[in-house]
């Protein structure tokens, strides 16, 4: 099968339960906002291929599967992640305060050079706002990451957020490609389409004995 993309990025969504991570993912991947199905079908990951400066970039974006609710995200979730969207809800002070804890969690589990970005979601709910834009900006500056306010519901700046994160990863990656690095690699991804060939017979190509 021909490769239909130049790069594949694994991205994660992290943040308190209820801030709108799954909706943000749906807005970006399906351009839809539908709250009824989300709680019934667990979302694993979604895929969208985007064009960025002439390159096709396949984004594979993983959702927490609800395991953030009692802080039971598996260490395996973080493996191989290249970018993380940290999401809070601008109408929920607590979700903003918890960003610090999520960053600590990321530092413990994700690769050290993972690209991060802060999202203040539900930004169309101006009248219920508890976290000012300035505080969001300030926190992002503190951690040296980018910040955007989004709304999955009103479709505000969700695209922009993912494109920004993807571009930053691409830049970092292209820079790294020049330097040689040596991370763990070469694992098998097992799948049903793996050639199910018969075991190499001890005799099949035997010419000598």
């Amino acid at each position, binding site marked *: 099968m021909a490769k239909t993309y130049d790069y*594949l990025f*694994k991205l994660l969504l992290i943040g*308190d*339960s*209820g801030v709108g991570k799954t909706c943000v993912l749906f807005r970006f991947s*399906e351009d*839809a906002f*539908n709250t009824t*199905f989300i709680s*019934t*079908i*667990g*979302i*694993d*990951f*979604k*895929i969208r291929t985007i064009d960025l400066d002439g390159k096709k970039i396949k984004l*594979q974006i993983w959702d927490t*599967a*609800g*395991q953030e*609710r*009692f*802080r*039971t995200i*598996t*260490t*395996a*979730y973080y*493996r*191989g992640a290249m970018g993380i969207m940290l999401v809070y809800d601008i109408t929920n002070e*607590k*979700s903003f305060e*918890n960003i610090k804890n999520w960053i600590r969690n990321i530092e*413990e589990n994700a690769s050290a050079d993972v690209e991060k970005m802060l999202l203040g979601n539900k930004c169309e709910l101006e009248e219920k706002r508890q976290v000012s834009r300035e505080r969001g900006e300030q926190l992002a500056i503190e951690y040296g990451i980018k910040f955007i306010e989004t709304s999955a519901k009103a479709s505000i700046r969700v695209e922009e957020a993912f494109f920004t994160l993807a571009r930053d990863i691409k830049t970092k990656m292209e820079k790294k490609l020049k330097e*040689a*690095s*040596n991370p*763990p*690699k*070469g*694992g*098998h*991804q*097992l*799948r*049903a*389409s*793996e050639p199910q*060939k*018969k*075991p*190499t*017979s*001890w*005799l099949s*190509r*035997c010419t*000598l*004995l």
Partner: protein
Amino acid sequence: MDNELPSEFDLIVVGTGLTESIISAAASRIGKSVLHIDSNDYYGEQWASFNFKSLHNCTFSNNIKKHTENSSDLLNFNNDSFNIRNFSAEWHVPEKIGIYCKNDDSKNRQIESVINDSLKLEENNENSVFLREEILNNSRKFNIDLMPKLHFARGDFIELLISSNIARYAEYKSVSRILTWLNNQIEAVPCSRSDVFANNKVSVIEKRILMKLLSLVDKNDNTTGKYTILWGNLQWYNSYFLDSKDKTFLEFLKSKKLTTNLIHFVLYAISQGTDSTSCIDGMANTKRFLNSLGRFGKTPFLFSMYGSGETTQAFCRLSAVFGGIFALNQPIAGLKLDNNRVTSLLNGSQEIKAEHFVLNIEKAPVELVNNLKVTDYISRAVLITNRSIMPSEQEHLTLLIYPPEDKGNSVTLIEMGHLTGTCPQNFYLVHLITKQQSNPKDDFKHVVANLFESNYTHLQVDGKPNMLWACYFSIPNTSDLKLNDNDHLNVHLCDGPDLDLDYDYTVKKAKDIFQRIYPDIEFLPRAPDPDEIIFGEEEQSKLNDVCISETPPK
């Protein structure tokens, strides 16, 4: 964030070991409501992987406080009789021994040389670090399995991962060579046809005998089970097996005129047997080995990257994707009885009802395991070393089978480098596993003495690798206990890790328990890929008939 757990479920799973996690995934998968809960703040129980510091400081208590209210209708989880014991950890390098790192980019450090004189080190070199510090600072890059496992490429476990689509949550690496200890040195075990040819320790005549034997086992190829192998091919059976069925595998191999070296390769390394292994088992195991060749790599085995602990988490992830609720680090106390029937879980002060309860053995209430006593233990050691036991240009993932010595048991050794994601660059992680005879340290003494340099005088640049750090512990082997012989039919106990190299037996046990709870319902049918889930009217019809198009990245 809402922190209160719902008060009723179809199934409550207590403990996050592999068996329970498989059951949890299977139940969520068919739409049951599942609460998966643990007192530990990490996944995996005795199947977990730890980073360096958490293993070094581990106490292996099950983190459950005895409930003070001594009520007769509570089956208390507080029971330490199945915990890991005899844990000890020790450094084998002085605290202030330094290494000089050539490259000061901390990620790509090359350990260039060792400076014995720590004073010199401190004065002159900003690129030097102390060896112990190097390990401690890289603690997070270690993923140290309590019980490392390998998987036959065509074994039941790998087939389940693929058929259920859980494989997308993990990555695997092939074991790249199999070694053994023969005539007081390390030897490579020829395990494919080309290996046999390439092996210059095996004479031409031996090659012929070996190929004949292996092709015999292979010929009989539409049978797989342990015993069906006997009946698969009557002619084969008659001519080669009839007189052997009561023999040991060793006697059989001798009767086929295998030389001592060949017998060693086939009996100990390929079939992983002992002198008393029966001919039937020996043949079945040899066949199983050969069957798994040629699928993913040079040997029949796969290892889960970042450690075996990832495997349990993969099943937990699937359970969560299908609605399972996960809660770790919980104040679970026990099971509540109502008229002698278990009805709910007591978590802190909350009572949570369920139809069925699946418990990890470490959480087994004393009342349910009264008459069970652990008699078997698995001896374990983990070593951190500075080089491979058999250095080569490429980094290997190595399985070494050390044959039984002096009436002892054979020892399984797995050596992994940084490409497996289980240890930092410039170090190797070595796991030792055997059936316990006296205690872990003594059980491995001969292996450690023969393969490693444990007394620090200087860092070896050739010869045996230095053992820099070691830990020892015993895991209770609960796999042969009759766990579910009690009156509470809606409580199901899951055992801990066994001595098998792989997980196939565990898959079987999980499936058995699942089918006891939910008879006649499919066990882990294939989960749809994300892009097969189309939202809207066609939702239902789309879930079943599709081919795989997207898979996660490397």
